[in-house]
């Protein structure tokens, strides 16, 4: 055998041994690893995604209104306006055209007693009112804006800004204290 052959043979053997050794150590450690207890990863880079604020009922929509189109809540805040203190709830809707979303939103509100009392010519604004049993009325307005999502099969399509009566925190769910759930950021003073 020339020295080159010897070296090659050594190299080939040395390629097998570490693999066997590592595999052996691995098996021993896998079996022995029980006795040291379990490690506790925090999962902090992938926190669980809890339901959104409307579904959890943190700050609900007016009585009985549930939305049945794909939306995400983007922001929720209260502000003093000419009509008194009002709630501005901003949603992004997906997969539907403006007309479809407007229809679904109108249906959701009319199902719980609202009537359309105003509508812009372009169809991008809707005002709805409900007479309340004790006199007075509840007013809700919606403004729709299409997003310029130029992707071939657009997912997120537009923005709905809802002008609603102010509502208090209505759920004791611990997640309702999380601004990333309620989307009430600026208000958290």
């Amino acid at each position, binding site marked *: 055998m020339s020295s080159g052959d010897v070296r090659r043979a050594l190299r*080939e053997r040395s*390629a097998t041994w570490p693999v066997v050794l590592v595999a052996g150590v*691995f*098996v021993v*450690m*896998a*079996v*022995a*690893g*029980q006795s*040291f*207890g*379990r*490690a*506790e*990863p*925090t*999962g*902090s*880079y*992938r926190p669980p*995604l809890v339901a*959104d604020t409307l579904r959890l009922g943190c700050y609900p929509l007016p009585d009985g209104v549930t939305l049945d189109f*794909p*939306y*995400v809540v*983007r922001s929720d805040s209260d502000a003093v306006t000419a009509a008194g203190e009002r709630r501005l709830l901003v949603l*992004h809707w*997906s*997969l539907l055209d403006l007309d479809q979303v407007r229809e679904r939103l109108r249906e959701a509100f009319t199902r719980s007693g609202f009537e359309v009392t105003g509508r812009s010519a372009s169809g991008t604004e809707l005002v709805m009112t409900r007479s309340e049993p004790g006199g007075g009325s509840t007013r809700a307005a919606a403004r729709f804006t299409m*997003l*310029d*999502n*130029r*992707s071939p099969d*657009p*997912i*997120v399509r537009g*923005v709905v800004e809802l002008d609603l009566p102010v509502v208090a925190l209505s759920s004791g769910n611990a997640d309702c204290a999380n*601004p*990333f759930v309620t*989307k009430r*950021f600026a208000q958290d003073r």
Partner: protein
Amino acid sequence: MTGAARPAGTWVRDLSRADRFLLVLVGAHVAITVAVFLQISHGPLVGDETAYVNGGKALSNLVRDWGSLRAPDGAEVAQNVVGSGWFMPGMSVLLTPLYLVAPHADGAVLRGYIGVTTTLVFLLTVLRVRRSWGALYAGALLVVPGLVPVWAAFSLAAWGDLLAGILIVLLLVELVELSRSLRSGQAPSLGDGVRLGLLAIAVVYLRSSTSLLVAGLGLVSVVAALALLRGVERRRAALSATVAALAFVALLLPWSVGASMTLDGRVVTTTSVPTVLANTFGDRDQVCFGPCDPGSTTWFSPLRYSRETARVTGHSEMDVAEQMSAYARQGVTSRSYSHDVLVDLRSYVREPERFYGYLRADPDQDRAQDVVIERSTRVLVWAAFAVGVGLLICVVRRPREDQVISILLKLSLGALLTQPFVHIAGPRYWTTAAPVLGLAAALLIRQAALRFAPGLTGPGSQDAITGAEIALGRWLTLFQALLSAGVILVATVVVVLATTP
């Protein structure tokens, strides 16, 4: 060991002067690493280190469950190892044995474990370089990155950038040896192919942004093999290349498939590219089709938006992120892009020592040793960047092996420097490029020595003067000239575009 019977210390005298010098450098490297360890061992985990540590812990539990034949906790693995698919799990795999033995290991143990592992891999790499390329290259590696204090700090930390950089050197050594066998008309063996494939996938597992480097080097190697070999050898080379690709894919698949199934969409390496592009070049106020949630990072807020939207639409969060990114980048112009590339390059280069401040236990007070660590890092790394510029614009004409090394280093550095063109750059990415820069310094020193002191010729400088070798030399020169011209062209275009109104 034959040295056992001889008096202690004899073996040192048997070493050549060069090897004795290397030994001193090894000692210095280890001393610096220990000194830096003492500064940061009680410091916090920084940023994405948490993700890798969580992954290591979850993998150790997975192995525990296998060992006891229990059903593994799939949710824990999904949440901590795959997570949002932002990181390849190379470092988590590396940390698994630690958490298997010490599930509650604290920060100091973690840093010690990573430090010992990284130092061993680094020193074995230096040894491999010494055997294959000679003492000069090994010595250069021991100086840059070996003597750079903040590189030592990173060698104790859980990001994969640094270890990927070391493995890139091993990959380059393999490729130079491949070039030797190609020049002698021999195809690489199937074993060589497997080894190359495994090394390449290890690099990608540690830092997925090296994918371009790995793909580029792979492509160039295959083209070179097919061009230089004939007949049976060429077919054998094609077979070896196929085997290398298969080894690579076989190890990539478990991750790709696992991550794709967990995240319910197509994942090859990582999922972060769309958000990265949006944050780097797009309008940050439009990443979530408008502003993202305040009060969180530019990474977690877009992620939450994409997850929330995916949940209500049935699309994957990656598809949503893709469209968010395209929307935020609608206003990108060649000028804004070039401007952002320059900003990134600046952050890549400017403060190589910055992470030391994050890793220290008491970042508020600057002690004398902190100033030394930070200043010496800055000096060494900036000098290394200057060497990098020299490497990118130089054209080596002889010997052949230096030409091959020059091409491989240029391709590697070029591929690593694409980072600022696609990603917000930070003072961490240089740790991947540092070993390449060290090798580049050795190449430039060798070339200077050949020119000004021709008596000092190392291995490989005596080329066979055959027609084929001369033709090869011309091709290697031409290729280098093209690469250098490409670099100069890109640099000029970026600067011109960024500065013209």
